């Protein structure tokens, strides 16, 4: 059990820290959460800065254009960028954490050359076309059809909860290419250009009042067969590659962010005298234990993956606890804010609302418990 970093890793940290200190002051002001073109411009500009400095695709394999960094370096990167208050991956999320790694793992040389460099440079934005109105956590129930017509697929159906759809250039799309096959077979993974005729995007308004994601309607959209990643009808397996990334590493930076928020809450409570309330104080202390342990669990999971373990299931353990802890953090924030918790312009109030999505998105907590029980504990499948 070794939590120390090598001199090379410490040197990497020092260089990154110095670079962040030099470039962050030059960044433009963060756009309003509902200003999607503004958010796209902001996020892609940050990605370009990372690319120019050699930090883009840090954990991607070298032959995919990445830096082939060690897991420890990746953790250092996430820790330091968050600590410095650098922008989130934002609109680049799907490209960098889902579609990109999937193409890197499963795509042909041609596909990798076409799609990966623009993601790393921040030139192209991807969105995720997985969920459907009648297939949320039950992803294999998806019904969007793709019928072969020469060297094209003709795609019809609808998708929902598609983040960044309004500003995306590409969509990683799951379609049913063989309706007669069993649910998990007969699915294919396509890269669809968002300005193809027949694609309609309609923003959805969240309970937080923002347009965080969208519905997408597909009406006889023609997608080249050459845009299929992996074999026809093998899209489920291809997708599982992507989802293990999502649960394994997607929230790592956020844990660091939560620890910062917790410190800020304590400072606020001290400033207004609420710190003398032992119930509140101890509640914040308990959350400190929680987020410290979640950071350690991340390091444990990364160590396990490095030894050939599976990030996906360890990721389910992490996600179950993290999504709960995040909600508890913002409940505590509301207590610190007191009457101000009714003011949407106060810091943390919007976060309290958006934290509600964490036990739902990327597989609900109920689905995660099934995964943990069946795949990690070996309990029998339910009927």
């Amino acid at each position, binding site marked *: *059990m*070794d*939590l*120390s*970093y*090598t001199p090379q*890793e410490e040197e990497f940290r020092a260089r990154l820290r110095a670079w962040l200190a030099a470039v962050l002051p030059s960044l433009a002001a963060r756009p309003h959460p509902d200003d999607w073109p503004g958010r796209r411009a902001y996020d892609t500009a940050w990605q370009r800065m990372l690319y120019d400095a050699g930090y883009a695709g840090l954990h991607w394999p070298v032959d995919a254009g990445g830096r082939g960094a060690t897991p*420890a370096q990746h*953790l250092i990167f996430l820790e330091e960028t968050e600590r410095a208050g650098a922008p989130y991956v934002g609109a680049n999320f799907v490209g960098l954490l889902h579609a990109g790694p999937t193409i890197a793992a499963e795509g042909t040389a041609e596909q990798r050359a076409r799609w990966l460099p623009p993601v790393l440079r921040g030139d192209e934005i991807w969105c995720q076309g997985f969920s459907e109105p009648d297939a949320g956590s039950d992803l294999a129930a998806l019904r969007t059809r793709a019928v072969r017509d020469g060297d094209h697929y003709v795609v019809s159906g609808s998708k929902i909860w598609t983040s960044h759809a309004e500003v995306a250039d590409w969509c990683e799309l799951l379609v049913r290419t063989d309706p007669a096959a069993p649910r998990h077979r007969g699915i294919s993974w396509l890269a669809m250009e968002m300005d193809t005729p027949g694609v309609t995007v309609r923003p959805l308004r969240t309970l937080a009042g923002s347009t965080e994601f969208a519905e997408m309607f597909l009406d006889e959209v023609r997608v080249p067969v050459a845009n299929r990643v992996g074999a026809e009808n093998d899209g489920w397996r291809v997708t599982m590659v992507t989802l293990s990334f999502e649960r394994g590493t997607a929230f790592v930076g956020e844990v660091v962010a939560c620890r910062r928020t*917790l*410190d*800020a*809450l*304590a*400072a606020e409570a*001290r400033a207004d005298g609420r710190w003398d309330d032992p119930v509140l*104080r*101890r*509640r*914040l*202390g*308990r959350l*400190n*234990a*929680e987020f*410290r*342990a*979640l950071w*350690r*669990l991340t*390091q*444990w999971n*990364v*160590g*396990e993956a*490095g*030894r050939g373990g599976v990030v996906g299931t360890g990721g389910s*353990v992490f996600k*179950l*606890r993290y999504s709960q802890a995040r909600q508890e953090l913002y409940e505590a924030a509301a207590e610190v804010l007191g009457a101000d918790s009714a003011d949407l312009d106060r810091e943390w109030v919007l976060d309290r609302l958006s934290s509600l999505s964490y036990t739902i998105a990327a597989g609900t907590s*109920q689905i*995660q*418990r*099934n995964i*943990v*029980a*069946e795949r*990690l*504990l*070996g*309990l*029998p*499948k*339910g*009927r």
Partner: protein
Amino acid sequence: MDFQLSDDQRALRAGVRELLAGRFGRDRMRADLDAGAGLDRTLWRELARAGFFALRLPEAEGGVGLGLPEAVLLFEEAGAALLPGPLVATQLAAGAVKGAAEGEAVVTAWEPGRPVAHLDGADALLVPGSEGAAVLRDAGRARESAVPVRSLDPFTPLWRVTNPPEVGEQVSDGGRLRTEGALLTAAEQLGSAARTTDMAVQHAGAREQFGSPIGSFQAVKHLCAEMLVRAELARSAVYAAAVTADPVEIAGAKLLADEAAVRNARDCLQVHGGMGFTWESDVHLHLKRAWLRAGWWMTAEAAEEVLATDLC
């Protein structure tokens, strides 16, 4: 950075597991329970010969020369096996109390306001204070004024000591002993939490109701999944705290391990249904010990205060 067990650590854990399975397996444990057996000095010496108490003493002093991470693995196995006795206090006192490292002397701990465990079988009392730590070489003096308590845990005899023992010879930094005691106790809690998870999963896979194993029902499945989540979060916290020996991290580890041990034992009992409520089931033994340990070395309240003070 490689936050995983090393090959040596895996081997050590496997060795301890094997030793405990051979010398204090379930049949032996239940036989001791029925007999109301006290502390077994023979077993105590065997544990000592395996390095249980001298583990962290330097090799020059006859110890094994290992550190907190290895000690945590040992205590995790002890917790899983329900091994009784003042294991934590004796290891902390090894090197300071003559014979403790060799298993000849049994050392228990005295904490203000709490009954003392295994006072009848102890040779010395360790009194960890925030300033300094002291050892009363003779537990007999404390026994003179002690009143037996009918203990919640049948494996842990308790005594109420009305006159706190006088502070004797200072042996070590009291703050360090306190945090190390909390960490080793947390490791026992972790072992218990992992064991009750295994017990629940085993039962849920075997027990059939309504024509199916009860583990196929989501309500039961989700209880088991949450048990694993609690145990694994506690594991990361305990192991990391053993590596850093950071007092705040140790407080977090104790808090989460206490919670995992107590709540997992309760959920394990629920999964076992009526069977879980019987004396024949081991679940109550884990729950009772977990409750006691939660009060030892560092309570939830104390841990939360340490963790709160660390903020901002």
